[in-house]
């Protein structure tokens, strides 16, 4: 009976024969670690790019989005817990969709990008990597929507086939990560730096949970960290919490709190701070950091106006807006 150690994520699960890792979907079968959801998604949709959210990456385009069961975090507030907190065999719906079928379908549906999303793409790593490789060869973009809880070596390998990422930083203290997510913060921050080094376009999301991570220390702390380590042009999305899963005792985040947090992040020097999950909040559009011109006007997930010139330049000052536009 050979126990194996999974080296994909910082948990380093020691998995006995017949057992599964903490993510539920990486299984030891007689000494071989099997990625049980390879080619077996449980969720496949076409979303707007803004839903990921990626605001500086081909705005307004559809993105083919998929997920399998499983996650290596266990956030009490998980929005997709029916998908993330289950193993593949527990899902009511499992589809047969090998990488080549995903790429072919994305192309047939005229999606220029594929998102690995919804649950946690890190845990279905091999499926993501194989699909992303084929997608890149077919001229499609790959986007990782993740909590970023992964070891450096596999992450660097994955970055070579990724074009963009939105990383959900859950909070900005180890205590928060331990209590709410059963994980740790440091590897996530390290991963963000690795992605920047590898040339992936990165946007960051912080879901603001009332009383848990909405204090100035965490919000300012994260904003300053992003400013110093990732650069002032890294977009930060502050999203509204809604009660889910095991955190239904809390109210939705007050909009005032979100706007206050946004101002803190702007004061910390970030150029692009967005408020998400609230329609018409005043913090969902993109402005030129040089002259304040409204460049992309959004209403919810919809782009009302896109004033960017070719190459993503501001029509007034001509400076390029950071991001990937063409």
């Amino acid at each position, binding site marked *: 009976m050979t126990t194996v150690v999974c080296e994909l994520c910082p948990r380093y699960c020691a998995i006995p024969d017949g057992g599964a890792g903490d993510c539920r979907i990486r299984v030891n079968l007689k000494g071989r670690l099997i990625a049980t959801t390879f080619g077996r998604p449980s969720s496949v949709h076409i979303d707007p790019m803004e839903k990921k959210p990626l605001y500086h990456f081909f705005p307004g385009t559809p993105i083919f989005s998929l997920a399998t069961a499983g996650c290596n975090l266990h956030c009490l507030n998980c929005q997709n817990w029916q998908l993330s907190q289950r193993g593949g065999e527990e899902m009511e719906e*499992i589809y047969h969709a090998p990488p080549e079928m995903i790429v072919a379908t994305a192309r047939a549906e005229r999606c220029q990008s594929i998102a690995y999303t919804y649950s946690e793409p890190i845990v279905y790593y091999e499926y993501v990597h194989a699909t992303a490789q084929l997608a890149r060869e077919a001229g499609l973009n790959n986007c990782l929507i993740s909590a970023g809880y992964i070891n450096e070596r596999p992450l660097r390998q994955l970055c070579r086939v990724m074009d963009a990422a939105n990383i959900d930083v859950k909070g900005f203290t180890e205590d928060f990560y331990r209590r709410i997510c059963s994980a740790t913060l440091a590897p996530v921050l390290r991963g963000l730096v690795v992605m920047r080094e590898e040339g992936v376009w990165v946007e960051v999301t912080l879901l603001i949970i009332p009383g848990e991570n909405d204090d100035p220390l965490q919000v300012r702390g994260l904003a300053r960290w992003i400013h110093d380590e990732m650069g002032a042009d890294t977009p930060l999305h502050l999203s509204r919490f809604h009660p889910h899963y095991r955190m239904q005792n809390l109210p939705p985040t007050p909009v005032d709190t979100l706007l206050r947090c946004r101002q803190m992040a702007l004061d910390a020097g970030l150029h692009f701070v967005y408020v998400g*999950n609230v329609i018409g909040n005043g913090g969902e559009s993109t402005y030129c950091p040089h002259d304040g011109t409204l460049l992309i006007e959004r209403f919810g997930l919809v782009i009302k106006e896109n004033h960017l010139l070719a190459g993503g330049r501001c029509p007034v000052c001509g400076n390029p807006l950071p991001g990937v536009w063409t």
Partner: protein
Amino acid sequence: MTPKNTDSMEKTKLPDRTDRRAFLLAGLGIATTAVVVMPSSPGNFAARPVERSLKEADFYRPHDRAG
């Protein structure tokens, strides 16, 4: 509005075009129970595959070998 990436609660099953329409409208903040006009689902993925995937994972080692 549907929170970020939360549609999977209703949509862990493969969507048909009706679901996609519902999503798109929800994205606009418009409540809908529309039952209409969208062509077929993205792809023809067969549910419940007969064969079982045995894709070997990357990044693991035997427990008795140092990392």
